[in-house]
């Protein structure tokens, strides 16, 4: 009984005023409730994200072979040394960067263009929104198979149209030079609808009086876009840029379904190579080291990007 009103703090009891006591009690209660709600999510997150990530960091320093999980040993930096001498890995890295460099302007540009059009257009607005957004909700595998048919060198509709207009049929996915660009276009087409919706929301958040004020100053349409719309869309653009970038780095399904990384490894991406070394070749340790290195690269790019944007703001 003598301890009532005392709060234990590292073995030292300090006196608390009664109102503080109840405050602490409710806070504790609130915490319990909060953690109970958080619990399941935290549990799943740690089971499927945190723990596997830590494990794969560990595996990247071992020679883990898929069929002999118990016999793995620590091999230090061996995997990473091999990685830099692996021509297919280096090729996949170049391919992925090439894809990112091309798809980002194309996809974001298309999304912004569509958003601007839809923002003005009032007629059948919902129809167009659904039309442009529908590829986003479709499975990537379905999209890829669909384009495989469209791009087929013999019977594909695209080549038939081309030859009708007197342009020679293109090899698209079967040429080492064109394949990655074909995948860029397909990916941009598939993904742009999502960014379009976010741009649209961003556009609708720009207050109308800014435009009115500008109109009084007599600016033309181009100035209006350059000096009002674009700057005010900046927060939206930054978000879109970062998410699209990370998404682009993770390219996997399109080359897996459409080209199997070929021809001549021209569409082999890093994530696809991770899958191949890990699950086909069974070199889990090696695959983990690629994942770790690639994760670090994406992290660095994102951080640099954030820094640049911040400096820009200052």
């Amino acid at each position, binding site marked *: 009984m003598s301890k009532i009103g005392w709060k234990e703090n590292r073995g030292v009891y300090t006196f608390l005023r009664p109102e503080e006591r109840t405050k602490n009690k409710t806070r504790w209660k609130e915490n319990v409730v909060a953690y109970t709600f958080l619990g399941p999510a935290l549990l799943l997150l740690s089971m499927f994200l945190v723990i596997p990530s830590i494990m794969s960091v560990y595996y990247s320093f071992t020679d883990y*072979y*898929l*069929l*002999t*999980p118990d016999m793995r040993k620590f091999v230090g930096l061996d995997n990473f040394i091999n990685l830099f001498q692996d021509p297919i890995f280096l090729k996949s890295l170049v391919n992925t960067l090439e894809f990112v460099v091309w798809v980002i302007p194309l996809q974001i540009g298309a999304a912004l263009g569509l958003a601007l059009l839809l923002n003005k257009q009032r007629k059948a607005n919902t129809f167009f929104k659904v039309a442009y957004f529908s590829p986003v909700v479709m499975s990537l595998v379905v999209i890829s198979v669909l384009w495989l048919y469209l791009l*087929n*060198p*013999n*019977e594909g509709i695209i080549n038939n149209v081309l030859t009708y207009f007197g342009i020679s049929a293109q*090899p698209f996915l*079967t040429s*080492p030079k064109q394949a990655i660009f074909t995948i860029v276009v397909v990916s941009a087409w598939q993904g742009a609808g999502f960014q379009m919706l976010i741009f649209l929301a961003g556009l609708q958040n720009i207050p109308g009086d800014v435009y009115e004020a500008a109109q009084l100053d007599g600016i033309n349409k181009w100035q209006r876009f350059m000096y009002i719309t674009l700057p005010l869309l900046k927060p939206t653009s930054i978000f879109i840029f970062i998410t699209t970038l990370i998404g682009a780095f993770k390219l996997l399904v399109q080359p897996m379904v459409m*080209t*199997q*990384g*070929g*021809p*001549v*490894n021209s569409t082999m991406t890093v994530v696809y190579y991770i899958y191949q070394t890990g*699950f*086909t*070749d*069974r*070199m889990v340790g090696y695959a983990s080291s690629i994942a770790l290195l690639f994760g670090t690269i994406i992290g660095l790019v994102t951080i640099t990007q954030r820094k640049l944007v911040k400096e820009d703001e200052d």
Partner: protein
Amino acid sequence: MKKWLLVSISLLLMFAAVGCSKSESVNSDGKKTITMWVHISDENEEGKVYKKRVEAFNKKYAPDNIKAKIEFIPRSGNGGGYEDKVNAALTTSTLPDVITLDGPNTAAYAKSGVIAPLDEYVKDQEDLLPSIKQQGTYKDKLYAIGVSESSVGIYYNKRMLQEAGVDLNTLPTVDNPWTWDQFLALCKTLKDKYDKPAIDMQLQSKDEMLTYALTPFVWSADGDIISKDGKKAEGVFNKKPTVEALTFIQTMLKEGYTTRTPVKQAFETEKYPMKISGVWTVTDMKTNYQKVDYGVIPYPVSPKTKKLVSPSGSWQFAMTQTSENKEWAAKLVDWMTNKDSNVELSRTIAALPVRYSSEKVMAKEFSDQMNVFLKQLKETGHARPVTPAYPQVTRAFQQTIDDISFYDQNKDIQKVLDTHAKEMQSAIDKAN
């Protein structure tokens, strides 16, 4: 509140306990259970045969208190699904007594101690076809027995060949195969007549089919992919015979006799007169393209050696190292691949038998086309390379074909071979 907590905790513990315990090998009724995983669906014709054969096994060995249990875990395209489950079971040591595995996986599974040798239990190995033994053997021990056999040949459209002026009676047979030059001449006749590729060589498939269908050309020239002991690719693959074989394939492409981008189902819809394909196309023709009158001829051979070689190999049964009833597990493997199982499967789907005894029965029942495959297999079947690094080796081979098919960019076949032999070698060195 407390009661509720107690109940839920005890429930949780119960599930945990159930989850951890390995499936017991002895049932409550005193019966020993042998579990088996297979890679196909129980709705599939092949799956139905397995099910029937397991039931027969149980009936026969009921007095011994043995019960086999079959679990169907369908695989997807590249073996995913089923193989994922096997891999997961490996990390938790919950493999069943018997598993199925694809032919080229034998070495990796045997080397890793996933599967156990059968020699001690399966005595009658003389009856097995050589290609089946070759496929299931690693370091002189038999680890797995094929479910069925398979082969590849050249399908031709009888009408289209006749209309091009080819006398069907002069076509090659297994005893008297054609050389590559003779085959090129046939292709020229057909190309001149139809102004289309003469044959679909499945060069567009970027998967195992490429290895399966095209390695025989290398073997026919007396070359190899890797050395017999499985240790060397450099100095084996990048040798003259491989160059000769690939030059033949490149010539086929250059002359327009075949193509990297064939029209879909071109042979089946009578657009191209020929196609390289496996026995499974017989079933496809029977069910979907009955109107096409077709025949099958064996592989053309190297003009230097005149040696006919054909591909072989399929999925197989094997028992796991962790099985607690090895004797019975091996008996089940033997049973699933014995004469009766074999004949039943061959009758149901277009699969070739794995034993001499069943082959004798089927030779009388098979169509002419199937018999070409059977004879070719029995006399010339060659298993794919046996190495734990098979996934990398086969991919390097597929990439070699991919590379040389761009003949204007890769005129120097030797250089392409050197690159990919090096890839194979480094994978082999890592795996051994």
